[in-house]
């Protein structure tokens, strides 16, 4: 298909922001099958849901600022952390990078005009929106928002009178959105690479998306089936999970984590891909250990699918199961470690400039290392028994999900947004926002490690006086963090409205394909599909670059 480059779109020179297709106005966006427009639709929705999720997070921390009641009653607090979890996980972090930057840049990075199935791509956005709306509806309907935590553990989730059904249905629909994106990306990467782009000439972000897409396709159906089984149990009265009907609540936990643990890798692997893109560009040298980074994504996807039961070490499994799951949990740390070492080595003898995307990428390495290493702490069986279901876990996964994926998303935003819209943000404000976010983040989450080791259980509305100091530091951290987020949002939104217009193709000095096309990209990305002759981060022109730098 792609070899047929003689068909050049008549609109080949129009920016995708102006090219409307057969619809006009808003409909030219919400019915567009252009991967770039769909990426932006996702971006707007995602950042909106993120703001809602942050608000719930802020309220949780505010409630915990003092012992006893600070702002709300326990029922409302329980709904807060459930909504915070559901929105952040299903509506922000899981779709996150693949849906926004994967959609926008995957075809460009591999030299394609669009994804393999553009209409399915649009469908997956619509499913995502329907799922998101259902979550919002569940908040507003009588009965009140779900109060089960994002894990929906049975039997509590079948006892509560809140709107769990809507939230579960939302998760079911969002699952299909994720599966469709996964199928689309796997097919796109297999079928639509430009001539000459063999597997090992692909940018590492594409490798990361490829590994992620497979997990999306293989793991997500399990959560769908599990939710269907719950419907079967409720409607037909067949005892599957509910002990009152003769079912096994542990079976539910297994099925839940068989999806939800790999989902963690759906969240983090693309962020690793973003970091692998950014570091060579701002160190202006080739990446260290390309193949090791590429294969470690695949290794994470494989091993990560076999460790789910480490969420259940205190639930009571056979010793054999505990042994195997603990061992595999330790082994899944190795490919992540390999990535971290290779990124660090990529800085060696580079020519490093600390622009905002690079700051976020380096912060990612630091925060993800803390998140990963504390994950290793919990892999040890005896230690996990003490730490599971405490705030240590909460700190650990926020370091991975927010310090990792969240910072990865902000890195991607600062790296690619100017390319997407042809507008530059204020670099200084971006750095100020970064430091607020970074300091606030650590102030917010680090005390949770200490407090968790001291025995503070998670999902607690109230606490003993000895934990008060940690809770207070943490809450103050949340204020600093939110200040940072407001600065970042303000800076990026302002840049889109009144930022300096740019048309330069390559603002950061990257060598991947997106930097060789117009800014902002034209309707079908490439006038002629490029022929690929070398890898993505060769930096053979370094002598010239260095000379240019001296002239400046």
């Amino acid at each position: 298909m792609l070899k047929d480059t003689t068909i050049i779109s008549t609109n080949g020179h129009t920016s995708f922001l102006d090219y409307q297709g057969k619809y006009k106005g808003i409909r030219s966006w919400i019915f567009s099958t252009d991967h770039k427009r769909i990426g932006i639709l996702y971006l707007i929705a995602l950042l909106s849901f993120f703001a809602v999720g942050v608000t719930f997070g802020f309220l949780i921390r505010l409630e915990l600022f003092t012992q006893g009641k600070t702002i709300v009653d326990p029922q409302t607090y329980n709904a807060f952390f459930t909504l915070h979890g559901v929105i952040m996980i299903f509506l922000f972090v899981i779709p996150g990078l693949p849906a926004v930057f994967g959609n926008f840049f995957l075809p460009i990075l591999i030299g394609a005009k669009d994804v393999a199935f553009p209409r399915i791509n649009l469908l997956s956005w619509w499913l995502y929106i329907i799922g998101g709306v259902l979550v919002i509806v569940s908040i507003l309907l009588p009965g009140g928002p779900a109060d089960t935590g994002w894990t929906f553990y049975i039997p509590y989730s079948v006892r509560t009178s809140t709107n769990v059904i809507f939230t579960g249905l939302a998760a079911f629909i969002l699952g299909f959105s994720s599966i469709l994106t996964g199928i689309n990306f796997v097919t796109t990467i297999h079928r639509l690479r430009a001539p000459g782009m063999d597997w090992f000439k692909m940018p590492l972000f594409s490798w990361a998306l490829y590994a992620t897409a497979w997990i999306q396709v293989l793991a997500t159906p399990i959560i769908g089936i599990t939710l269907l089984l719950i419907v079967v149990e409720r409607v037909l009265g067949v005892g599957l999970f509910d002990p009152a009907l003769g079912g096994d609540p542990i079976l539910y936990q297994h099925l839940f984590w068989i999806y939800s643990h790999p989902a963690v890798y759906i969240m983090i692997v693309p962020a690793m891909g973003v970091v692998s893109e950014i570091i060579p560009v701002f160190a202006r040298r080739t990446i260290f250990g390309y193949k090791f980074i590429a294969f470690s994504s695949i290794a994470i996807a494989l091993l990560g699918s076999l460790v789910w039961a480490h969420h259940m070490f205190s639930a009571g499994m056979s010793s054999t199961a505990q042994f195997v799951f603990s061992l595999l949990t330790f082994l899944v740390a190795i490919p992540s470690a390999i990535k971290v070492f290779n990124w660090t080595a990529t800085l060696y003898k580079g020519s490093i400039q600390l622009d905002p995307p690079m700051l976020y990428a380096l912060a990612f390495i630091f925060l993800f290392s803390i998140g990963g290493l504390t994950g290793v702490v919990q892999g040890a069986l005896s230690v996990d028994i003490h730490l599971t279901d405490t705030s240590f876990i909460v700190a650990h996964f926020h370091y991975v999900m927010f310090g990792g994926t969240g910072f990865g998303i902000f890195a991607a935003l600062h790296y690619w947004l100017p390319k997407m819209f042809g507008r530059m943000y204020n670099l200084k404000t971006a750095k100020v926002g970064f430091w607020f976010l970074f300091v606030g983040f650590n102030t917010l989450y680090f005390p949770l490690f200490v407090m968790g080791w001291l025995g503070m259980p998670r999902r607690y509305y109230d606490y003993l006086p000895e934990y008060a100091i940690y809770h207070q530091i943490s809450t103050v951290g949340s204020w600093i963090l939110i200040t940072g987020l407001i600065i970042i949002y303000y800076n990026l939104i302002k840049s889109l409205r009144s930022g300096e217009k740019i048309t330069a193709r390559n603002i950061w000095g990257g060598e991947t394909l997106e930097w060789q096309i117009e800014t902002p990209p034209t309707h079908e990305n490439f006038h002629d599909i490029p022929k690929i002759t070398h890898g993505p981060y060769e930096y053979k022109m370094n002598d010239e670059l260095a000379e240019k730098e001296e002239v400046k």
Partner: protein
Amino acid sequence: MLIAQSEFVKSVDFAFFFIIAISVFFLVLITGLMIYFVFKYSRKKHPKAENIHGNVPLEILWTVIPTILVLFMFYFGWMGYKEMSKIPEDSMVVTVTAQMWKWSFKYENGRISDTLYVPVNRPVKVILNSLDVNHSFYIPAFRVKKDVIPGKQNTSWFKATEVGSYPIFCAEYCGLNHSYMYNEVVVMPENNFITWLTTDVGQVNNFTNQK
């Protein structure tokens, strides 16, 4: 609170601090190198980057070393866990019943209490039952945690080695008053415990006031 001892506190804490020490070492190493490179090879000082595509011996080194280290971590965790799961034959048995949102402890002689009284230096086996939803029986000071699941009888054990009282939390989210599903384990000298176990309820209040 965490100074208090039970039988396997030592092995849990050893594994924990062993892993933390290695983690801190690697974190400092990575972060230190990162900061050092950022300054040493900043674009101003070092305008021309050198391309290094990789180094296979180095890759092998930083795959093998962490693998060996995590196998040690795994081993310590596993040994500690084995200790936790081997319940001594001579344990005193307490049947624990969890329900939203309180604990109840039943002793072999039929005595029932809301607070868990145990003798010092004697292994105590807990049999965990739930009347409604999932709970989790958690005594941080003893590093003991086990989920309490309806329709499934989990067991756990501990041996308190120091007199005193320590919190018991519910660690598995169980609804509205999850954070108030709180009580204490009171560790007493053997004699006091036997007196308590065999006295009737009226005198218990009196007794606990004296402790």
